[in-house]
């Protein structure tokens, strides 16, 4: 069985990637995924650049931790700054197609982003640490002493 979508000018050996049940069905596309892409097809799935990256913030009592999904960014592409309670993460990378290749489908996000988080907890800006691993940027923001939880002794009277 030979199935080709070569009626859109992609040439005689156009690869036959196509969707079985992709809601964004478009025969002009060469490459479609099998999955029922409701996630992708929903309005806004292709999140605006400003919404990137996905962040998760957690509080470990002694520090705040921020996890940002930054696939494809190298450490030198990312700048983290902290000023007056505002944490800012900026990053930029090339979004050019790999050399010698022609793009057939592009879903991956923008090549640059900037996000600012206004922290409600006082942290020690001098001791913020940032680490990049497997496309996840992890920030550790130690709280200032007075912002840490303390236990209060209960006195019997």
């Amino acid at each position, binding site marked *: *069985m*030979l199935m*080709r979508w070569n009626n859109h000018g992609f*040439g005689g*050996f156009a*690869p*036959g*990637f*196509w*969707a*079985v049940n992709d809601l964004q069905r478009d025969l002009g596309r*060469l*490459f*479609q*995924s*099998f*999955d029922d*892409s409701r*996630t*992708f097809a929903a309005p806004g799935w292709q999140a605006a650049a*400003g*919404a990137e990256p996905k*962040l*998760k*913030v*957690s*509080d*470990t*009592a002694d520090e*705040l*931790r921020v*996890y940002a*999904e*930054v*696939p*494809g*960014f*190298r450490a030198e592409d990312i700048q983290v700054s902290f000023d007056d309670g505002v944490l800012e993460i900026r990053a930029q990378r090339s979004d050019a197609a*790999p050399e*010698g*290749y*022609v*793009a*057939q*489908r*592009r*879903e*991956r*996000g923008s090549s640059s982003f*900037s*996000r*600012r*988080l*206004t*922290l*409600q*907890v006082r942290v020690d800006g001098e001791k913020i640490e940032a680490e990049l691993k*497997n*496309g*996840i940027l992890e920030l550790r923001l130690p709280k200032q002493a007075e912002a840490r939880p303390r236990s209060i002794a209960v006195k019997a009277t």
Partner: protein
Amino acid sequence: MTVASTNPIASENKSTLAHGPAVNAPRTVLPRVDVYENTDELLLVADVPGATSESVNIRLDEARLTLSADYTRVDGSIVRYQRAFQVPETIDADQITAQLKDGVLQVHLRKLEKAKPRTIAVTAN
């Protein structure tokens, strides 16, 4: 630019580490994929932030290519990136290779020799 404010106190109930790691069923996520092509191959580029190379699973079953990779969060929850594609007959099933770097999975699908464009010499007689 997005200016987002977060209230870490409010997030504590949901994501505090104080409760210890929770082992949850994987949450399946469709990774975003770019597809590139040159004369020799198709190149899939998938965003799988946090995924480790040990967790990557690439499977070709008949003409169905399935990519999967897991990201285990610090709280123990698992994000499973998974997506399947129909592979054309022009792909050499024995020559699929992949690399994972910086949370990006690249899968090289080489074309069969007979599928590559070729130049036919014209001889004068």
